[in-house]
């Protein structure tokens, strides 16, 4: 008999993992939660500490999971000084407290920078996916080989669900991304290209790999500014390097725009983060490519927060208008969970069976899940599929989750399209004179 986690993972190959009988799935999920807690408690010290501190010894109901959820900051809770001072062994020790990596697995001898450190972790059979926030400090989210192959299965089976796309390499590809880099979106775009695009006809925004040190450069400079050691010349060269990069990307985008305009009668694959997609659409429109004029077999992938760069409020509508008539992946997700919640015919995001949704109150303390009906709260979840790290996490998103069966006829729960970040809701306007040093350096440098 396969374990509950294996059974849940195997649903991805079942044809329609989103249409499982609710009661059976509920039992299976709870059992899988027990399994994943037992397995990860042994391997992930932070989870073990949490379990001991909160006195949770076993999972008898979803309520038991709430005190065990990590916040997204756990994956960037390392002291930055470990990186600036090149304490790679210490950084590894940190990493092994938040993920299922053993210190002895990774050889950090002779590591010179954070990119090499990331490569060493990868060489040991793990993949640390990076996400970057506006602060510039990056999160390291560990996946192991089985997590990566599961991700690959998801994209082969479910791309464009509920009307999945046959896995055939028949498109001309455009990846608005660097050639490589430890970001899940880059891997996702590349894998999609391998499955759905002709390899010799796939173009990249840049052939350079995305470097972690580059992603962190603003954080590192900010730190030096706070310490008062950054010189005006350093700040100025940082700013001009950012401008140069923007210019180069702009030129690369212009070449892609020309190519898309020339080939728009063919099926295309266009993959990019929201801000790149937005720039692309503006440029194509300016080039005279009208809305809704791409080949109907074109596949469009987009997503990602628009950190540090504001998009207009109606960017989603603009995407929908420009890409009218083509195949688009419409989903709600985040790097922290495997696969995404995919939109059904009724535009409601179905939560994959391996993800247990936990709707919490705003402080993230009380479980609000219901048997039926819509519940508003903070989106949290346990992804039972993850092997490389503990998949229990509290997000910053305010969501409405409908626990009743979906209007599309499938079982729930579903996330309704009105998703906002608590941070963007404005909150109150409490004023205090106590502040962090950040106030004094932020705004002086971009990003």
């Amino acid at each position, binding site marked *: 008999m396969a374990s509950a986690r294996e059974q849940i993972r195997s649903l991805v190959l079942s044809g329609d993992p989103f249409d499982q009988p609710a009661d059976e799935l509920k039992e299976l999920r709870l059992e899988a939660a027990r399994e994943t807690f037992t397995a990860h408690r042994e391997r992930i010290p932070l989870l073990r500490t949490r379990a001991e*501190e909160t006195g949770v010894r076993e999972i008898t109901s979803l309520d038991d999971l709430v005190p065990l959820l990590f916040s997204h900051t756990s994956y960037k*809770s390392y*002291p*930055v000084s470990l990186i600036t001072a090149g304490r790679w062994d210490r950084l590894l*020790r940190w990493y092994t*407290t938040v993920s299922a990596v053993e210190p002895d697995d990774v050889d950090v001898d002779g590591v010179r920078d954070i990119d090499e450190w990331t490569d060493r972790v990868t060489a040991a059979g793990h993949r640390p996916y990076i996400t970057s926030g506006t602060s510039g400090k990056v999160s390291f989210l560990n996946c192991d080989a089985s997590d990566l192959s599961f991700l690959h299965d998801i994209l082969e089976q479910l791309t464009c669900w509920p009307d999945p796309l046959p896995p055939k390499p028949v498109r001309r590809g455009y990846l608005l991304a660097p050639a490589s880099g430890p970001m899940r979106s880059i891997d996702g775009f590349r894998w999609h290209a391998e499955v759905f695009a002709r390899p010799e006809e796939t173009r990249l925004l840049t052939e350079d790999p995305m470097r972690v040190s580059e992603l962190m450069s603003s954080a590192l400079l900010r730190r030096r500014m706070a310490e008062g050691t950054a010189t005006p010349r350093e700040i100025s060269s940082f700013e001009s390097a950012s401008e140069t990069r923007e210019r180069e990307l702009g030129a690369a985008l212009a070449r892609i725009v020309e190519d898309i305009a020339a080939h728009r009668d063919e099926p295309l694959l266009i993959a990019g983060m929201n801000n790149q997609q937005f720039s692309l659409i503006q440029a194509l429109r300016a080039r005279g490519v009208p809305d809704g004029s791409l080949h109907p077999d074109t596949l469009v992938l987009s997503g990602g927060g628009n950190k540090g760069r504001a998009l207009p409020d109606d960017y989603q509508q603009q995407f929908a208008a420009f890409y009218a008539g083509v195949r688009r992946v419409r989903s709600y997700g985040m790097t922290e969970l495997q696969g995404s919640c995919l939109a059904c015919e009724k535009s409601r995001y179905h939560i994959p069976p391996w993800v247990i949704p936990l709707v919490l109150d705003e402080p993230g303390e009380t479980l609000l899940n219901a048997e039926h009906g*819509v519940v508003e709260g903070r989106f949290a979840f346990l992804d039972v599929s993850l092997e490389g790290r503990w998949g229990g996490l509290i997000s910053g998103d305010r969501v409405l989750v409908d626990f009743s069966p979906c209007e599309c006829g499938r079982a729930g729960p579903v996330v309704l399209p009105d998703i906002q970040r608590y941070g963007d809701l404005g909150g*109150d306007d409490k*004023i205090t004179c106590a*502040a962090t040093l950040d106030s004094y350096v932020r705004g002086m440098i971009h990003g």
Partner: protein
Amino acid sequence: MSDTTLDGVAGTAAGSVAVVHIVRGEVDHGAQTTHGRPGAAFTAPALDLDRLVWPRSEPGPAFQVPVAEIVDLLVETGEALRADRAGLLAEALERMVRVSPLPAQVLERAYAVLWRSFRRPNLYAQIDHELGGTDVLDGWREVGLPDDRTAAVRAFPPRLVHIIAGNAPGVAAMSVVRGALTKGVNLLKLPSNDLFTATAILRTMAAVAPGHPVVRSFSAVYWRGGDETVESVLFRPQFFDKLVAWGGEATIRGALRYVGPGFELVSFDPKTSISLIGREAFESPETLARAAEAGAADATFFNQQACVASRFQFVEGSRDDADRYAALLCERLGVAREFSSADGPRVAAGLREEIDVLRSLAPEYRVWGGYDGRGLVIRSPEPVDFHPDGKIVDVVPVADLSEAVGHAGVATQTVGVYPPTRKAELRDALACAGVQRVVSLGGAGGMPPGLSHDGFYPLQRLMRWVNDE
């Protein structure tokens, strides 16, 4: 909508609090509108923008009132606040307890001493030290110029709009005192974390001297910070000379949009504070106890919600020395003081996780205390990346206190030093780094009247200085 959600909303609507507005010294009885978010909703009278400005075509009500009379009024107001016979402070306190992040006992003690800002010696200390005497407030001060010329200057009453901070009730008292001493007109914007203190003080003053020109020179109202429909109308040189804004990065950056010729920003910037503990602390168990107690007092001021509250403490000594200090400090953080409680807010989940991770990085990092709000101390080889908040102190050992100066900057307001004899050797370097106050450890709380604040003399900065040459 589910039952859960509806119940939640209904519960908060029933519990929403009514905020009182003062317009030109009188309670505004206008129609109420609802503000705030579910869970923290409150009502306040709708704004009549016309009533919130004093036309420039006429002098403000108190422009010609002698300062001695204003001081008398403030002193009387202080006595009335102390007695609180009408129960205005009690009522404000009762409402504050329901919405403030500060515990009731801390608020109670803060309210009990609001009157202290209104004492005569305090008022004259500000006038004498900041302006050089009352003469320049009441009239024209003759000044000698080179080449045997003379001129006259006057500290002329200004038109001020204040965005006050709500993390400590004393801010409201300080703003009313400064505003009254200028003789100018003052519009106070109430912060959502203190919707009651300023109005309680103004109502008390109005009860002491109904219709007094100074009373008529004050309004205190709420609008949502950043609300363009209000701020783009009011923040104009036609109506006000200066925007007096207390911290909050968003507040200051929002305010900057309106600054221009004729409309100046006086900014009490957001700040943070640190402590420096010299090796003398380890001379005896008594000195160590003294240093830890003083360090704890500075760290817990308003349960660490105030800008003067110390968050990073640099200890001159070995890692073991720092550990001895840290252990003792942690014990002392859990002690109630005049402006702090034994219990504080529970440590937020995000911070808890960061600290859990540091625990696992022993021996470089060590942690004392728990997450229950009674105080927590982290010892680390260098300052932690996150902002310690809610009675959390980060203790960092340094070989020499001069090394710690490198961790002070323009955002550092107050630096407490132990023992006080070490201040003299450090103060120039700290000032050079950007620091505004160097105090004896334990003396960070409560800024003495008459000294500079955030690097300037507020009263002097609030006035309009006019010459007769």
